[in-house]
């Protein structure tokens, strides 16, 4: 069976998905230039209603999903956020609110906590307030994020602080971790930009130098030692300067799925950037039908589609040849070895693109 040129391998044995990224809305007050949302954003009038989300959460739990990440856009842009979260909790899922920190009032946070919210992740753009607001494209965002963190900690909700790293803040890794500690976070994500969606569009303005990246990466272990047992530091490696690719989303259609605001189900948030794949909607199918039968989910399942050098590589079952979206974006072929890998015959593309750095103004992400 073929679908738009991609061979569909036999879909067994299937893994159970562990995590569901629920993009409740693409609306967001911020305009971060590295936003991982697609350039073509879903409109408000196309958003799933709360009852449909409740069904999706029940179906997800039935598939084996354990955790739901309520994200966006800014999930608090939805007035029914508390109802949506409560429905996920009722389905037995672990609920993680991923927020910009702008739009969640103290009152709403209390309602979320009372309804069983498990965890809050606040993104913050920099430890310097002015720089943070400039990156977010929103005056006063930094202060509001810090304010929400105080409210989260006061309610004894566990807090993760997420900081996306790029040229404008890469020299402040120590200060960023210190800020997360000061905010009362139990966990901090030092996440180097991954170049999809808006980030790909802004790549030249965001890309750090190799030296900056090496210095930033070298800070992580000393900081982990210094703050051991006070805060967990998780680091997302900078793709373009890596030797090997990341095992993107734990493998295509293997461990996680993503539902867009309008209800399309994807193996990862960037999957729609790959031309020629047709994604099904929860409006027409159950989540199980989609997970098991949507040809787009089967297109890159397993490793049989991979070319050399992946096929005979000892890391084949570790990283699955890397990221399909990145392979497509940089080589035009979604089946290719992720060119981030130094063994890829097209690795030079990554090196060339990493060398393109311009102090251009950001193209802010706007609906």
């Amino acid at each position, binding site marked *: 069976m073929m679908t738009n040129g991609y061979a569909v391998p036999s879909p067994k044995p299937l893994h*159970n998905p*562990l*995590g569901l990224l629920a993009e409740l809305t693409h609306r967001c007050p911020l305009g971060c230039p590295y936003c991982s949302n697609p350039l073509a954003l879903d409109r408000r009038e196309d958003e799933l209603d709360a009852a449909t989300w409740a069904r999706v959460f029940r179906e997800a739990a*039935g*598939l*084996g999903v*354990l*955790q739901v990440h309520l994200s966006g856009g800014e999930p608090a842009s939805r007035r029914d956020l508390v109802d949506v979260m409560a429905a996920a909790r009722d389905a*037995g899922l*672990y609920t*993680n609110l991923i927020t910009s920190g702008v739009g969640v009032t103290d009152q709403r946070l209390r309602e979320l906590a009372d309804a069983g919210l*498990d*965890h809050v*992740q606040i993104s913050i753009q920099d430890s310097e307030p002015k720089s943070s607001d400039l990156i977010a494209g929103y005056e006063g965002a930094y202060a509001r994020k810090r304010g929400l963190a105080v409210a989260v900690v006061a309610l*004894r*909700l*566990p807090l*993760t602080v997420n900081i996306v790293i790029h040229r404008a803040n890469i020299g402040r890794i120590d200060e960023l971790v210190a800020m997360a500690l000061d905010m009362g976070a*139990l*966990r901090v*994500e030092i996440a180097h930009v991954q170049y999809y969606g808006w980030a790909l569009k802004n790549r030249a303005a965001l890309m750090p130098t190799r030296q900056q990246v090496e210095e930033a990466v070298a800070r992580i272990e000393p900081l982990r030692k210094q703050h*051991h*047992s006070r*805060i*967990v530091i*998780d680091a997302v490696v900078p793709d373009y300067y890596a030797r090997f690719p990341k095992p993107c989303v734990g493998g295509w259609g293997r461990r996680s799925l993503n539902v867009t605001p309008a209800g399309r189900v994807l193996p990862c948030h960037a999957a729609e950037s790959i031309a020629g794949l047709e994604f099904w909607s929860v409006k027409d199918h159950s989540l199980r039908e989609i997970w098991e039968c949507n040809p787009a989910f089967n297109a890159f399942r397993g490793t049989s589609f991979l070319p050399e050098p992946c096929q005979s590589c000892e890391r084949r079952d570790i990283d699955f040849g890397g990221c399909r979206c990145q392979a497509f974006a940089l080589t035009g072929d979604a089946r290719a070895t992720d060119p981030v890998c130094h063994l890829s015959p097209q690795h030079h593309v990554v090196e060339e693109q990493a060398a393109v750095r311009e102090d251009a103004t950001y193209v802010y992400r706007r609906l």
Partner: protein
Amino acid sequence: MNTPATAPSIPPNARPRLPRGVRLVHNEAQGGWVLLAPERVFKADQIAAEIVKRCTGEASFEAIVNDLAVTFAAPRERVETDVATLLRGLADKKLLDL
């Protein structure tokens, strides 16, 4: 594997509990017990699950060790070492309050 000399010590009267945001659940589809935490999922084997189930904030460390030693008819010293190692590891990862 773990000698008492290198095992982390936990006060006998400590009352370990899972903090908000960490939950132990049983899930058929995932094949057993799992510990759910912020952005993380840990598979818990039967023994780990039996230990974590007892971390309610009510039982003391000493009582948990005694209970497990009796329930599983195992040497108390060995149980204490295993439990202390697991709990200290969880606490270091912010998955347990001691």
